[in-house]
């Protein structure tokens, strides 16, 4: 087959495949993500208020124990195999909050456990969460450098 023919076959196939692809129910997914994501954040706010009022935390530091508790819950749910069922329904609603970050680490760690503690758990834990940390750190570094220099130039 010449290259041109091959290309046109590929194009036809792609069009065909696109037609067969199930349509994503974008609106329904967004509503689910909104409701579940909102619920997770409201729950987080409850924890925040709890730590604010009953322990020695202030506005700034109350975020830390809140995240830790949310992460612990997400990891436990992942371990019991419940998280996957919830996230299948909620989509981004459970993926975008910090619980999704914890879930991606816990599920990778549990899944690769059979390959050993060092090469399995240790090496694969960040398989899914790694990009978030890498790009977050690089972006934060660039932004902080630019802002620091800007403030020194503008201030001095």
């Amino acid at each position: 087959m010449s290259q041109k023919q091959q290309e046109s076959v590929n194009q036809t196939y792609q069009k065909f495949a696109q037609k067969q692809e199930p349509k994503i129910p974008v609106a329904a997914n967004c509503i689910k993500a909104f409701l579940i994501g909102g619920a997770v954040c409201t729950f987080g706010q409850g924890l925040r208020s709890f730590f604010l009022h009953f322990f020695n935390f202030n506005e700034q530091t109350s975020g830390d124990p809140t995240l830790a508790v949310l992460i612990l819950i997400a990891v436990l749910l992942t371990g019991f195999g419940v998280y996957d069922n919830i996230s299948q329904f909620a989509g981004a609603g459970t993926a975008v909050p910090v619980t999704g970050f914890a879930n991606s680490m816990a599920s990778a760690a549990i899944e690769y456990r059979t390959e050993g503690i060092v090469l399995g758990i240790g090496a694969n834990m960040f398989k899914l969460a790694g990009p978030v940390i890498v790009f977050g750190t690089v972006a934060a570094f660039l932004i902080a450098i630019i802002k620091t220099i800007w403030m020194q130039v503008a201030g001095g």
Partner: protein
Amino acid sequence: MIYFWAFVVGGLICVLGQLLMDVAKLTPAHTMSTLVVLGAVFDGVGLYEPLIDFAGAGATVPITSFGNALVHGAMAEAEQNGIIGVITGIFEVTSAGISAAIIFSFLAALCFKPKG
């Protein structure tokens, strides 16, 4: 009232993530990375902190706050120690989240067997 805004703002950030996945057809990893970078940029221009004051956990629980916290720690140290503070301070605020996720995940991997 803060509960209401936490719900709305947190929900909207999740909808943004859902749209990135469904409409822009990004993988979850790309979506999360995009949101983290967005959070960092928003803090860079000084918009994320007001959002936290306004929506509380609605702004601190989504992954965008991770980017915000990275920039925040870096800037706080940079103001005290100059430009080297950017390096030393970058994980200052996010330490709780990252350590908790690593420790709990590791322990969970020891305790639980993979399902399915």
